[in-house]
């Protein structure tokens, strides 16, 4: 008796299809690289090497005397990220319910919800920041708005997937006991989704700390403001210090949030 699995049937059509795709991808690369006119000579010139030699060591000799000012701006950055992601974590909830096909049984409304979320996801934070700086002026509030809107798209999408994955039998059991819709929301749905919602919101906060670090470059507050000044004045040692602080902060926040998220679900 043989238990060997019969070999997977090979079809030439599939092989040909793969071959065509591979060739197309390679062709696309070749075409891109040849057509964007990279001046290779300039990139590998003596000047580049000199610049690197001048700038890179400064990065590793950070301006520790600036620690105080930089830390204050780092904290501002964290607050921008926190306020923005908190706002997003809340705004995303109703939108997520609108998108979830097991909650709103209306294809049309689901699609509208998806459209809203998709539209806000399409904007990079930095573009949103430029828009809000124009709207509310160059201050951290513009950053908060940019982060809030930018994060709503992703959180709404993730939330709605969580909602669609809940155990609907529990909802049926509660309906069968005469509970009304709001009671079912609080007793049947929320306990099933809240830990995941929170976990995603914390994860998004992690991303937002990074995102809000650069928002200052367009005037939306936070540590990016310092990066812009230091960069314009060619203070590479200061840029080095800023980067160091960002790296340390982001790492700490990642660790903490990872720990909290593991304990949540």
């Amino acid at each position: 008796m043989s238990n060997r699995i019969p070999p997977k049937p090979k079809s030439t059509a599939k092989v040909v299809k793969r071959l065509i795709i591979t060739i197309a991808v390679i062709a696309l690369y070749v075409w891109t690289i040849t057509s964007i006119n990279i001046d290779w000579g300039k990139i590998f010139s003596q000047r580049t090497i000199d610049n690197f030699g001048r700038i890179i060591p400064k990065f590793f000799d950070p301006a520790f005397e600036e620690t105080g000012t930089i830390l204050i701006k780092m904290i501002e950055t964290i607050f921008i990220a926190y306020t923005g992601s908190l706002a997003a974590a809340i705004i995303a909830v109703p939108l997520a319910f609108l998108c979830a096909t097991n909650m709103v049984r209306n294809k049309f409304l689901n699609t509208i919800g998806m459209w809203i979320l998709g539209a806000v996801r399409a904007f990079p934070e930095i573009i949103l920041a430029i828009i809000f700086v124009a709207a509310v002026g160059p201050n951290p509030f513009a950053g908060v708005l940019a982060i809030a809107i930018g994060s709503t798209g992703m959180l709404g999408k993730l939330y709605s997937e969580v909602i669609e994955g809940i155990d609907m039998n529990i909802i049926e059991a509660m309906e069968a006991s005469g509970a009304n819709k709001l009671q079912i929301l609080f007793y049947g749905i929320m306990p099933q989704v809240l830990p995941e919602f929170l976990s995603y919101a914390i994860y998004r906060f992690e991303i937002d700390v990074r995102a809000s670090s650069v928002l200052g470059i367009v005037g939306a507050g936070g540590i990016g403001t310092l990066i812009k000044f230091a960069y314009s004045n060619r203070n590479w040692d200061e840029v080095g210090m800023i980067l160091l602080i960002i790296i340390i902060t982001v790492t700490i926040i990642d660790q903490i949030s990872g720990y909290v998220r593991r304990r949540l679900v």
Partner: protein
Amino acid sequence: MIEFKNLSMTYPNGTKGLKNINIKINEGEFVVIVGLSGAGKSTFIRSINRLVTPTEGELIVDGEDILHHNGRSLRELRKKIGMIFQNYNLVKRSTVLKNVIAGRLGYTGTLKSIFNIFPKEDMELAYTNLKRVNIADKLYNRADELSGGQQQRVSIARVLTQKPKVILADEPVASLDPPTSHQVMKYLKQINQEDKITTIVNLHFIDMAMEYADRIIGMRDGKVVYDGPASEVTEQTFEEIYGRAIREEDMRGGEEDE
């Protein structure tokens, strides 16, 4: 009293779940419905609390035709009818107590329930019912920390906390092992006798049906093909209901293990 009058149910896809059912279930009876898979047992039971809506005929519960209930009147109906499911349907991340007190939601104002404010009597009722099914020590455990049999007992406590006039149970022991199955059935029977709650249970197992039922209703292909007191039922009756010989899998067994 529950009365089916020429009741039929056609699912939206055209499947006939119930075909012209005429039956009366009296107060305090312990009825077991048997039949092969697809016979319409779930459809029968779920019509009574309108989880499905029959398409023709009348269904009288507590003196009212319930087929046209909706919104508030439907919730009022459902408050009177408790339901137990094969998969317990507890909120796994909530505590046992929170799951059981959820049985009171139909009686509690929306705002109060959102803030978790229940009358003291209701909390005590929840606790008493947990004691009745012998699981009060797990009060503050999360539901997913309990075994299947324990979860089913919690769901019985939840239904009791609803103070229903009728208990419906759709295959309450299908996911349990034989000794646990008997334990759960015994609690249902005891509650039926002590509280005089009309109880309707779907079962696959003929030995359990004969042991616990006052009355057995046999279904096949959406129709009631047998209706009689459990004392008059023999294996032959089941062969008629099922339309085939009795097999080993039709028996739960395991009573003597306890």
